[in-house]
């Protein structure tokens, strides 16, 4: 004979556990996280070197220089005599140049931040390890 503490009694006890409130809380938490989650776009970084634009830093090497050139409505890039309209063309031209001396990005005050970022990216894409950001006050 099985009296108190029998399996049936235990089962009935377990069956009376109030799951509804716990499930409510869990669903509320789920809804909260679903609503408050913000998906930020993934960020990356460019790490150009900084060099003072002031004179007095002579160097034996002649680095390549990327300068700004206004070409119609677009902010183009000038490397030597070549004017390039977009980042990919700039990267293609830079890829053919010697890399040892590095490259200088001369950003004038008149452009937006997009321009030097594109120039630095093009230099990195072309394989330059040494990219220097120099403000251009001309």
């Amino acid at each position, binding site marked *: 004979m099985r009296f108190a503490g029998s399996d049936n009694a235990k089962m009935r006890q377990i069956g009376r556990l109030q799951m509804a409130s716990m499930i409510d809380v869990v669903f509320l938490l*789920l809804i909260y996280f679903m609503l408050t989650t913000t998906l930020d776009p993934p960020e990356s970084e460019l790490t150009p070197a900084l060099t003072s634009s002031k004179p007095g830093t002579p160097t034996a090497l002649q680095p390549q220089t990327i300068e700004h050139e206004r070409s119609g409505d677009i902010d183009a890039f000038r490397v030597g005599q070549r004017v390039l309209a977009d980042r990919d063309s700039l990267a293609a031209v830079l890829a053919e140049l010697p890399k040892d001396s590095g490259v200088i990005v001369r950003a004038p005050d008149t452009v937006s931040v997009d321009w*030097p970022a594109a120039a630095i990216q093009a230099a990195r894409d072309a394989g330059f390890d040494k990219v220097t950001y120099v403000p251009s006050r001309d």
Partner: protein
Amino acid sequence: MNFEARASRDHVALIDLTPMIDVVFLLIVFFMTTAQFASMSKERLELPKQQGETAGSPEAAIVVNLRASGELIVSGETITLERLLRRVAADIAKAGSADQLDLLVRADRGASAAILNDLADGLADRGVATWRLATERPAGSAP
């Protein structure tokens, strides 16, 4: 004797909630781990859309946000360039070397490079040799 009613109660009691609760908990864990909680140091800006060199690291000693309007924001507070450079100088003095300075510039792609140039000049004058410029990876690009 009411056999049918009892049978019905037994049937209801047999609904197995365990897998559903498992799934819901897994969803909660997923959202908790993937959620990127808003950081005080990061303003909502439209960064230059470039692939970048390295994945953005979450923390830097100084995170400088440059709005399209030209305002400089550090730790959620609008700050002048002079004050920012004083803070940079203090951090350099504390670290003992300008090479130790970890500075991340998050500049809106539409902001004028003039402010970036002023900042670059100020940093270079204080011996800072490098900085980090935040970019936003274009959609669909490989990490």
